[in-house]
């Protein structure tokens, strides 16, 4: 009949930072754009609300992994654009490696037991 109506899944804590970093690594983006990219790239599985997104972005700012600047959006509205920093790229690599190790381990356990 249609697509299976899945409830949007809860993101594992800590992975949101990883995903945001990966998204802005490709280029500067504003908050709405990041949320949109997340939704489409995950085929509607991951939907993040503003009460999780913006605190996450602030956290990335606090740690110096992204910088933010006001600019003009596609439709000429004022928006804040986030860009990844060098430290952010390093962090991205580390978190990605950790994540893949974690996933690999979970997979192995599921397959062998």
């Amino acid at each position: 009949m249609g697509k299976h109506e899945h409830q949007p899944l809860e993101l594992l804590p800590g992975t949101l930072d990883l995903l945001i970093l990966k998204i802005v690594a490709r280029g500067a983006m504003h908050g709405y754009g990041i949320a949109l990219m997340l939704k489409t790239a995950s085929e509607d599985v991951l939907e993040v609300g503003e009460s999780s997104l913006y605190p996450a972005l602030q956290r990335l700012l606090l740690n110096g992994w992204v910088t933010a600047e006001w600019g003009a959006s596609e439709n000429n509205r004022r928006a804040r654009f986030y860009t990844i920093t060098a430290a952010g790229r390093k962090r991205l690599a580390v978190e990605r490696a950790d994540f893949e190790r974690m996933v690999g381990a979970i997979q192995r356990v599921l397959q062998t037991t």
Partner: protein
Amino acid sequence: MTRFFRRLQYWMHRDRMDAELAEEMEFHRSMLADDGRPAAMGNRTLARENARGVWIWPWLESLWQDAVYALRTMRRQPGFTLTALAALGLAIGVNTSLFTIFNAIALRPWPVAEPSRVVTIDRFTREGGSDFGIAEYRYLAQNSKSFSGMIAMRNGERVKLGDRALPLTYVSGNYFAVLGIQMERGRGFVAQEDVTGAPAAVVVISHDLWENLLGGDPRVVGRTIRLDDVPFTVVGVTPADFISADPLRNLVWTPLAARQLLRPNDPSVEKWLAAADSCCTPIAGRLARGVTRRAAQAELAILVDRFREQNRMSRQNPRIVTAGTAWIESPRKKRQVVPTMVALFLAVTLVLLLACANVGNLLLARAAARRQEIAVRLSLGGSRMRLVRQLLVECMLLALAASALGLTMAMALPAAILERLAPDQIIHIAPDRNVLIYTMAVATLSCLAFGLAPALHGTRAGIAGALKGGAGAEGPTRRLSLRSALLAVQVAISVTLLVNAGLLVRGIQRAQRLDPGFDVRNTSVLSIDLPASQYTGPRTKQLTSALWAQLERSRDLPAAGLALNPPLSNATYSTSFQLTGRPGSPRLHIYANEISGGYADALGMRLLAGRNFVPEDAGRDVLIVNQAAAKRFWPGEDALGKTAVANARVRQIVGIISDTYTNDLTEIEAVIYFPATGSWGAPAVVVRDRGAATLDRIASLVKQMEPRAEIRAATLAASFDRKLQPSIYASELAGLLGLLALAIASVGMSGVFAYVVGQRTREIGVRMALGAQPSQIVRLVLGSSVHALAGGLVFGVAGAAGISALLVNALPGIHPLDVLAYSGVVLLLMAAVTVASAVPARRATRVDPVRALRWE
């Protein structure tokens, strides 16, 4: 670290950051709307708060908010704030001042380099604790490996510098070096200046002395000053803040050996310096690197016995104890001081408790007034813990402000108190880190004490009823119980302090009327100071017998006599005493005095048997004993004519005189009297007259015989009053604290009465409409607190009786159940209640029944 700086930057621009975030999220929503998707994205406020929470620890921010709110509330109610600050500030100030004094005198170690390595050394044997002899000390200092340096010090007599008499301290040559004192000018002593038998006439003076008595002379080092008329060279000046090992003796130091220069004709000095078995000099030392106290103690015990062996003395097997230099660590503390200290601390703590109860009551009243605000906040979902925390933050701010006031008081008050108690000492007292920590602790505890209960009480869930508005929403009696309890506490504390003050005052009155066994009112004492450096034993004896003969001859003088030790002086003499003709009777120590024939008459004492001394007795072995001695040693017999060995000679008893109080006013002891020979020192003249004419005549009599004598005349009444001085101070202190307590409690009482009037305005209106008289209304208002007041009175009286039972031994004349004192305080309390209730009672009687009833 960088994260911290980023946080700081965020904090500084937090409003702008907040606005930017809001704008950003607004943009997000508008984009969502453009895309046709509903903005069901959750709680915006929560998002903003979470975002902020990333930068600023939320607890810190809410704490800051609480503090700002608290300050605003306090500013809006200046009456409450000032009253609370005043009560708390005074109470904390008194507390901190006392601790400052205690800290300076008892808790601080010597102000020397590395004080933890410096220890006092005490010796304990079967007979008790004792100090060391100087020859012994020098042996130990030389041979001990556990100490990098050992010092000895001995408090000396007062010496005259110009026209001032200063307390002198004798110290070993290495004193300043071992303690690591950096001299302000010049240097300390060196070992060569402290050689027994070859002393150097050198002196170190304090900064205060240099400034005040020597005029801050820039060339003071090398200058010669005369102590007791003996020239000494100043070699150094101690720094201005050096308060020395004994804060009451910090003016003048000379080497131990130099005592021979000051007392050349005193044979006991040489003995003190050189004999192996001399005693009574305290020593201390700086532990060598890596040496423990136990090791040092063991080594010294061995060395002491080796010294004794070398000097053909018996083995002692002493127990050597080293201790820190703070007074409180000393193993031989004076036991009498501790109860006084405890009593003082108890008193000021009580005042603090009272202030806390007072502020607590004020806070309860305020919480009651803010009932509606609190109810609204609770109903909107505010957490009770958060509210309680906010109230506590208010209390903490109050406590901190009061501590600041208290610390300010503690800068000035301790010095003022000490100046009153010991006016001729220079003591440097100032709050230090310990005092600060103590004050913070006191403030925190007070805050919890007065703030916690009202905070919990005022935020109870049942407060929802308050939303309906109107006074008396809850039964007045229930809410009043906590306030009544606090009131009772305040009354109890005030009563305790005031009753104790009253008991002390009555005790002093009783002590002043005491009959010490001699006539206090009409007698004077002339003390004779002979220049010690020029007076030898034989010359003193000559003077004494000449004086005795002169007094005997003068027919137109009122009764006068000589005494080595006049009554109520602070010295006591004792000597060995053993009965003859009774084998096995022990050798005791007994109080002794030297008197002439006119002594008993001069003091109004009675001769009970035998005769008084005559001048010829000075060459005979005779004794007079007092009645207590006669009853103790010859019970049931006539002591007259009996013999005893006193001071190593057999003497015969020729007279018995009445008992007197010797030095303190609490006990009668057995005393024996020798005829005045002057062998122990120059006597004082006791005369039965207060008139200046007589005193001048006697003074000129003495001066004729010895022009260089210094005569000081004082009435016995003055010495008597001086003995009572501690009691007088105590009563002043207790009285002031008690009045302070009562004042604070009265303000508290007034508050409670006003509250009751406010609570029961409607009820009062109804009663007045029904024709009640004003007096009935007043009785209604007071009646609500009668239980609290009565309870407080009962507890206060019980507490006072308990405390005074402790004081009985410390101060003379106190009778714990003195009716006059208790009734006086009850009257005072009733007066306070009357005053406190005046304004609220009037307001109660002025209630307009119509208006009160209309507020339905």
